[in-house]
Structure formats: C-alpha cells, structure tokens
C-alpha cells in the first residue's frame, strides 16, 4: 500500500523537480533516477500483490489486481529504459541544436508527468478519474510531440490533440451513461463510478444504457488505442515527435488505453447477455490488422512505418481480447507485453539510426551493420521479433491467437494470415537494406545507449522460450478476470 503512494508520488515529484532544473546537464540522470525509483516501487507493489492478493487504497479509490499490476510494472519498466535511452539521444539532439534548454526542461518535466498520468490511469478504481488521467496523458504527450516546434511537429500535435480530444469526449459521454446506469443500482453516494463496486453489481445494470455507454467508451478509448478508422493521429504523432516519445507512445500509451477498454468490457459482458463488446472488438481489431498491414507498404519514413506496425499489433491484441476465452485472453496479455518490449526496443534502435543518418527516410539509412553493428543488430533482431519469427515472444502469442481464431472464428483466419504475411514482406524488405550494404554514415558523437535495446529483446526472447511460473500465474489470473 505504501508502495502505491511511491509509484504515483515519485513521477509527480519528478515532474515538479525537473520543471525547475530540467535544462541542466545533470537533468538527464535525474530523469533516469526518478524513473528508477518508480520502477523499484512498482516491483515492491507487485511483490505485495502476488503475495497478498488484490489491494485497495484511499477509500477504495485505488485498486490493484493482477490485471493492472502487471501493466504498472511494464509501464514503470519501459519508462525506465526509455529514460536511459533518452540520455545520449537528447545529448545529440542538444548538440545539433534541435533541443534548446527550455525545450529540454519541458521535455523532462512532461516525461515524468506522462509516467504519472499513465500510472494513475492504471491504478485508479474510479472510472471518472480514469478518464481524467487519460485526457491528462493526451495533454502531456501533445507537449512532447510538439517539442521540436517544427511545422510538421506542430501539425502532428494539433491533429493529435483535436482527434484524441474529440475521441476522449465521446468516452466522457460513455462514462456519464455508465454512471447513470450505476446510480440506479448503487445510489449516488456509494461510489457509483468505482470499478469494483460496478463489477459487483454488473448483472443488474440496465442493458440499454450499458449498450450505448460501451459504444461511446469503445469509440473514445479506441481512438487512443489507434484502431482503424480512428488511427489518423497515430503515425503523425509517432513520426514527428522525438524518438523516446514514439517509444513510450507505442509501448505504453496504447496499452493503457486498451486496458481501459478491457475494464469496460468486463462490465459490459456482465450486464449484457449478448457478445456486443466482443464482436465490436473483433471487428475493429481485424480491420486494424488488415488495413495497417497494407499501409505498411510504400512508407518512406522509418518511424511512420513502425507506427503502422503498432496499429497492426494493437488491432491483433484487440481481436484476441474480443474473441475472449482463457487462451485468447492469455495470448492477448502476452502479446501486449512482448509488443510493448519489442516495439520500444525497435524505436530505440531506430532513434540512434536516424540520428546517424540525420534523416528518417529509409532510403537514406544504409549499412548500419558497418558503422555501428550493435544498432544494426538491434534493429534487425527487433524487426524479426516484431514480425513474429520464432523463438521470440511475438511468435508464441501470435501462434496462440491464430490457433484460437482457427478453432472458433475460422472466417477470420485468412484475413489474419494475409495481413501477417503482407506485414512481414513490407517490413523485412525495408529493414534488410537499412541494416546491410555499404554506407557513408558516421558514428554518433556520443556512444548510444544500447543496453535497453538488448534487455528488451532479451526479455522478448525469454517470453518466447520460457514464461516464469509467477508470470504465467499472473496472466492466468488476469485472463480469468477478463475472459471469464
């Protein structure tokens, strides 16, 4: 319980401290320090939940169960490694004049505030606060995306703000409707927006209101997940912001938005006897997978390409959760983890590569293997891992999702296979020349931080070969809760 306050308090304090000194040379290390503190607190919290079961805090306003504690740890971990990656990255950007001291201060402060909003969204039990935290996360990432102040980054940030603002307003309407349904059962005083209370009475919630509420909530949070056709903001925001921001957007923000949908899915499934939530998620998920896979073709900007790959994978995860059942849900959770790890590792490698080349155009990034073999290997292995090559974890989860789809929803299998094949061809054809061949690129002024890349890839590899028993148990518990 103490650990929870540290998990939320450290990043909040960090944002205040870095708002004061974020432009100094040591701020990069302070940023890593705060992220490390958050990660340690998250580990302690996880240990407490594993040994003691779900816990509440602050008059049931916070609630930790196997589902969100695993995401809290993942969020804190990726937050830490991204902070480590951003140290040399931002030094190079500063030397090249792209980051000035005020921008660095803004960047560091917003980075910590972003971590805070993510963790708040994950740990809160109040569905209204969940909305507030998601909106605050949008605001902080808008600042992060626009930090370069170039025409393109302003455009991306504006688009992001307006599209996600509209999307999340729909989610607020859904939350209002949910509250209306809950108030009839629980009463206005009894914490009618607390998820655990709602979960206890979900069978009594009015089906008509819940149907409409879920539709609005799904569209709202689905915009933030980047589901097609609500995905327009995502490639721009990924491509035009600094690369550490792309890594946390793909690795964390999309997960947290999907987490919100999962919470509402549990309530909706309890209130309705039909499979509305599941069918919506399957439909949107499958559309995202297929459309994003075809959009991968013809991309010239490397970050944009991997942003489309994120849409594809989020679609796949949404599809898996939509199918429901213990196996598909387990696979969805596993895929969430490995996608988050591998995709951020790819963005780390891509970040160093684009700095070496001075451009994000793939045609001008050549022969990474020669100039810095570690970046080249990182990108190559990362690309293979995200494409679902064994023995990486993505293979395991995609295999589970595909086999479940074949058994239960055979009609979807050809679409999935087609999309995965198209994505493979598109990404592999692009990455291969970037990594091999001759080059005129120069090594970076500062040694890149490659530890995070290989730690992430290593974990992704481990999850493909062997899932530790406690992690396995954890996924099972969470899967039972969501998938029924």
């Amino acid at each position, binding site marked *: 319980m103490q650990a929870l306050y540290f998990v939320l308090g450290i990043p909040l304090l960090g944002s205040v401290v870095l708002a004061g000194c974020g432009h100094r040379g040591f701020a990069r290390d302070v940023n890593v320090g705060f992220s490390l503190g958050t990660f340690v607190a998250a580990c302690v919290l996880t240990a407490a939940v594993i040994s003691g079961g779900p816990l509440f805090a602050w008059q049931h306003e916070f609630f930790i169960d196997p589902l969100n504690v695993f995401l809290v740890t993942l969020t804190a971990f990726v937050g830490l490694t991204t902070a480590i990656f951003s140290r040399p990255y931002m030094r190079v950007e500063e030397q090249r004049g792209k980051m000035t001291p005020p921008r660095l201060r803004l960047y560091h402060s917003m980075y910590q505030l972003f971590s805070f909003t993510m963790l708040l969204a994950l740990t809160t039990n*109040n569905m*209204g*606060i969940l*909305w*507030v935290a998601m*909106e*605050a996360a949008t*605001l902080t990432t*808008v*600042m992060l995306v*626009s930090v370069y*102040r*170039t*025409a*393109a980054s*302003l*455009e*991306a*940030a*504006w*688009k992001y*703000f*307006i599209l996600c*603002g*509209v999307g999340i*307003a729909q989610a*607020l*309407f859904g*939350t*209002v*409707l949910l*509250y*209306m349904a809950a*108030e*009839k059962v629980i009463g*206005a005083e009894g*914490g*009618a*927006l607390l998820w655990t209370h709602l979960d206890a009475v979900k069978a009594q919630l*009015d089906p*008509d*209101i819940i149907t*409409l509420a879920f539709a609005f909530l799904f569209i709202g949070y689905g915009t933030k997940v980047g589901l097609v056709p609500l995905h327009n903001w995502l*490639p*721009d925001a990924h*491509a*035009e912001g600094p690369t550490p921001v792309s890594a946390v957007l793909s690795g964390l923000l999309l997960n947290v938005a999907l987490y919100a949908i999962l919470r509402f899915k549990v309530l909706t499934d309890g209130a309705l006897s039909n499979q509305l939530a599941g069918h919506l998620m399957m439909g949107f998920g499958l559309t995202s997978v297929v459309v994003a896979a075809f*959009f991968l073709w*013809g*991309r*010239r*900007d490397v970050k*944009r390409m991997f942003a489309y790959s994120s849409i594809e994978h989020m679609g796949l995860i949404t599809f898996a959760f939509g199918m429901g059942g213990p196996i598909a849900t387990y696979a969805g959770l596993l895929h969430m983890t490995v996608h988050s790890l591998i995709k951020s590792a790819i963005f780390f490698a891509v970040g160093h590569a684009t700095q070496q080349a001075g451009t994000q155009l793939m045609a001008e990034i050549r022969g990474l293997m020669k100039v810095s073999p570690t970046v080249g290997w990182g990108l190559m292995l990362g690309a293979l891992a995200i494409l679902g090559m064994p023995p990486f974890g993505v293979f395991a989860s995609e295999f589970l999702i595909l086999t479940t789809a074949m058994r239960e929803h055979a009609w979807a299998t050809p679409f999935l296979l087609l999309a995965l094949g198209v994505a493979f061809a598109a990404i592999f054809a692009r990455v291969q020349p970037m990594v091999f061949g001759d080059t005129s690129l120069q090594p970076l002024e500062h040694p890149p931080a490659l530890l995070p890349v290989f730690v992430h890839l290593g974990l992704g590899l481990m999850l493909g070969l062997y899932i530790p028993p406690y992690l396995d148990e954890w996924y099972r518990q969470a899967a039972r809760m969501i998938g029924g």
Partner: protein
Amino acid sequence: MNGYSGQFINLFAALLLLLAFAMISQRRIVSLIKLFTLQGATLVAATALVGYVTQQPHLYLSAALTFALKVVLIPWLLHRVINRLNVRWDVETLINIPTTMLVGIGLVMLSFYLASPISALSTTIMRGTLGIALACVLLSFLMMITRSKAVPQVIGFLAMENGLFFAATSATYGMPMVVELGIALDVLVGILILGVFMFQIREQFDSLDIRHLESLKED
C-alpha cells in the same frame, strides 16, 4: 413548483440547442465567442436550477466552477488570443452553412432517436433533455469538422464539453465532485496549451488556417 422548474429546465435545454445551431451558422469569430459565453451562462443557470430543485448542493459548486471557467476565464482567454493574433473573421467554412444546418437537423433527430430508450429510464426531472445534450455534443462535433480555422475548431471543442456537462447534469445530477474537478482542470490546461499552439502555428505558417496543417500526408 416542480412543474414550473421543469418547464424552465426544458427552456434552458432548448436555448442550449438553439445556441448550438447559432454557433454553426456564425462566421464571425467574435460573435462565436459571445455565443459560446452565452451557452456557458445557460449551462450555469440550468445546473444551478437543477441543484435548487433537487436540493443537491454539490451542483451549486459545479455551477460555480462552470461559471468561472466557461463564462469568465475561457472567453477572456479567447478574446486575448484573437486580439493578439488579430483574427476576427472566419471567412470560409468547408461546407456552406445551409447544408451544415440541414446536416445538423439530421443529427438532432439521430440523437433523440438514440436517447429515447434511455430517457425513458431516467428518473431525474430532466429526462427529456438527454437527447438535447447529445445533440449539442454532435452539433459541436459537426462545427469542428466544417471549420477550417484554428480558433473556431477550439470553440467547437469547448462547446462539445458544454454539451457533455449538460448530459452529466441531465442524466445523473452531475458527476462526483472529484471527477468534475479533474475534468475542469483538464479543460483549462487543454485550452492553455491550445492557446500557445495557436501562436506557434501562426509563427510557422503566418496564418491560422488549419489547411496548412495538411502536409503530413501518407509520405
């Protein structure tokens, strides 16, 4: 007593809808801000009245918050922005105004259709107004789509927030206080960020036309 207040609430709801239509048809930015302020004031009156009728003191607080934010602070900020940027006209809309109005009427019918099964279940005295609230949200959404300049888009965004607040009051007598405070904070921070953005967009493009922000095509 209840009969009269019920009528008054319906009147305020109708006013909100009328103002939403007025905003769609308005081309001048200054008038747009005035209409937005008026909409905020109507919302405050409606919230306070519901609070009085139903004896829910927290609605007074919510009304006060709305007043400070939507009637005083945000209009003042918007006036400052347009004076500093010297944009008083929003000459073009992307679709002409009569067509937009017709689409708007369609949206109102759609919202009443969507809201009717739910209104029937509502036990509050404002049950007829949920459809209007949804209509306000969708009309503001329409305004955001059809405007090509930054300031009207932002006003559309804020008007949508108004519609959502009205929905919360009409469906459930307002959200829990902590949530309402959080929402107000988000709106305030959001508008500040957007204000800063407008200056930066102007600096970059020498114009606040959002159509400049369309260079990020698919490569």
